[in-house]
């Protein structure tokens, strides 16, 4: 229960704000206290937002493209350049963005619940960096191996990296909730240094930079389909959402309610590792989504995963879509990688979260 103290504390402090009416309404459950806006409203709103962004994302690009052309080809039942552009480039790209956003946001939510810490995300527990290291090693040793093998190795490496990290933070008292992300950042930096060293020695820095830098400009039909796997994992996360929530409540509560904490934790870790590995393999690292989106959603709707996961997924997708659209239009016709944009937006949001949270007493 002590793990929840920082969060409960944050709530107590901000409960003076007039908007938080549910505090007085006394729903009784900690998890429900902040729920002011009903979930269906948030979900519908984020769905509409995402729909708008999808339309925008489909119509922005260097190649000439017009919706009337699509309409024409639909009416005449014949393929023209507009529809093929849509099918080969724009739609795959948009789907890849949505899936990546969903995967990173959900993975961030899961790792936050499992580690019981609001300030971590896959790239702060060494998952994405380990995945890149594993991918690099397997690409150097067995360059001809199939993509699925490479991804498997990356996933295993990510699991190992997260295990090592969990061993590292094993002795840290959970009340020191900012120490864990700090150690995670340094830990990730160390793995990245090793990866860079290997890449430098084998002259494969260029290959590495593709994975270390999230970018959707290379996404075409046939190059992103692996990302659907993360969609499946998100469905799985939704199915076991209640178990994850209970594990996040603390060891004793999980024991009392008959949930095997160990088993659920490992399933969560495995899922996060796999999502990070798939994203790194197909588009590269995009830091801070898994951190910012779950935090914002949790402030709006509490920590009950079954309730908040859809909003996390939708808002994650919208965030990446928005950043990709910014990246494509800020220096049109050139493209700024989405990881760069999100590095700026995400860090600012994270600093805001850090500076407004109360000091540890």
């Amino acid at each position, binding site marked *: 229960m002590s793990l929840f103290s920082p969060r409960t504390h944050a709530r107590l402090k901000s409960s003076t704000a007039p908007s938080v009416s549910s505090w007085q309404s006394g729903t009784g459950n900690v998890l429900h206290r902040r729920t002011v806006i009903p979930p269906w409203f948030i979900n519908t709103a984020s769905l509409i937002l995402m729909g708008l962004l999808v339309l925008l994302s489909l119509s922005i690009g260097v190649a000439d493209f017009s919706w009337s052309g699509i309409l024409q080809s639909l009416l005449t039942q014949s393929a023209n350049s507009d529809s093929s552009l849509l099918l080969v480039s724009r739609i795959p790209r948009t789907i890849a963005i949505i899936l990546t956003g969903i995967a990173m946001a959900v993975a961030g939510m899961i790792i936050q619940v499992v580690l019981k810490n609001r300030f971590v995300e896959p790239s702060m527990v060494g998952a994405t960096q380990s995945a890149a290291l594993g991918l690099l090693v397997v690409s150097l040793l067995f360059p001809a191996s199939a993509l699925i093998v490479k991804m498997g190795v990356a996933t295993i490496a990510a699991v190992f990296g997260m295990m090592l990290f969990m061993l590292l933070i094993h002795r840290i008292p959970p009340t*020191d909730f900012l120490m864990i992300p*700090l150690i995670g950042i340094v830990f990730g930096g160390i793995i990245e240094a090793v990866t860079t060293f290997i890449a430098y020695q084998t002259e494969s820095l260029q290959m590495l930079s593709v994975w270390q830098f999230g970018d959707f400009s290379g996404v075409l039909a046939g190059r992103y389909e692996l990302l659907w796997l993360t969609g499946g994992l998100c469905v799985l996360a939704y199915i076991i959402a209640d178990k994850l929530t209970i594990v996040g409540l603390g060891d004793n509560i999980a024991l009392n309610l008959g949930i095997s904490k160990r088993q659920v934790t490992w399933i969560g870790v495995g899922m996060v590792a796999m999502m990070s590995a798939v994203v790194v393999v197909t588009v590269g690292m995009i830091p801070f989504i898994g951190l910012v989106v779950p935090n914002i959603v949790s402030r709006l709707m509490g920590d009950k995963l079954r309730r908040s996961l859809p909003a996390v997924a939708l808002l994650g997708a919208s965030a990446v879509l928005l950043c990709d659209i910014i990246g494509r239009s800020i220096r049109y016709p050139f493209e700024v990688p989405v990881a760069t944009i999100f*590095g*700026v937006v995400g860090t600012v949001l*994270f600093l805001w979260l*850090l500076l407004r949270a109360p000091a540890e007493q």
Partner: protein
Amino acid sequence: MFSSTKLTSTKTGTTNTSTAVDNSSSTDDQYSAAAQGQLAKLWAWIAEHPKSIAAIVLLISMTLFMTLNVNGYWDFALPLRGKKLLALMVVGYAIGVSTLLFQTLTHNPILTPSLLGFDSLYVLLQSLLVFFLGAISFTSIDPLAKFTLEIVLMFGASLLLFKLLFSKSSQDLTRLILVGVIFGVLFRSLSALIARLINPDDFVVVQSASYAQFNTVNPQLLGISLFICVITAIFVWRWRYQCDVLMLGQAQAVNLGINYQRLAFGLLTVIAVLVATATALVGPVTFFGLLVCALTNRIARHMYHTERLILVSLVAMICLVLGQTIFEQVLDMAGVLSVVIELAGGLMFLALIFMSQRRSL
């Protein structure tokens, strides 16, 4: 924390000698006892004179750096290597002294200016200057004027950053470091964003302005850096006793008649100048200062700045010169030194965190 480091250092010293006695006593008791006596004496002498030993090691590594693998073309090799050697030593001095002073100013042995984002700030300033002035006017400014401008900007910005970081959360060290680290990430992301926004010609200018390599040291920049080193050395040397008093804590220092505002201002200026110098010469290195200061605190006999200021410069120079010699001439791996230093420094950072963690428990 400072004093207990001293304690452990003496402890390990004695255990080292005692285990050595145990090992060799089985062979020839009398002889080994005498030899052990000699060894213990030598050890004691080494521990008594860390400065002289460091100076000797530095001289040896300098000689090695200048002479190893020179195949006859002395009049070509010596000036080239001399310039590199000078640059390495300037950088070592700048990083070592700035980190030591920063630790004194913040009363904290696990902080370095780079960990809090100070040198990514310098890179960001470079990018901003090019962005607003354009590459042509940026390169056509007189180097001395440009450097002065950069120092002034850098100083103002670090003053703001320092105020932000230390006014609110100086009590909460973890939050402070985490906020600093995230600021570093933000500055780097912003620089990357600017690098994407400007045209490629300007980008090359930014690149060469922020990451000059040792192999292509700009003689003019080296001259300015040397000049800065001498000036700062004079100031720092005059402040060394005040710094000793400052280590007792701000309140005690004020009680003992230190003009805290003035001293802190002066120290921060020197730190900003030295960070700018080091970054201008080699680019950002996050953990090097931390590594060097931890080493220095370990081998120094006491915490007086008279000793540690000299020692930290010597140790930093040895690390750079000897490391560069080994990697370039012996192992034939030119650009690896910075990676290795970052790796070692990162591990050192984790070790320091865990040590302070255990002590606070």
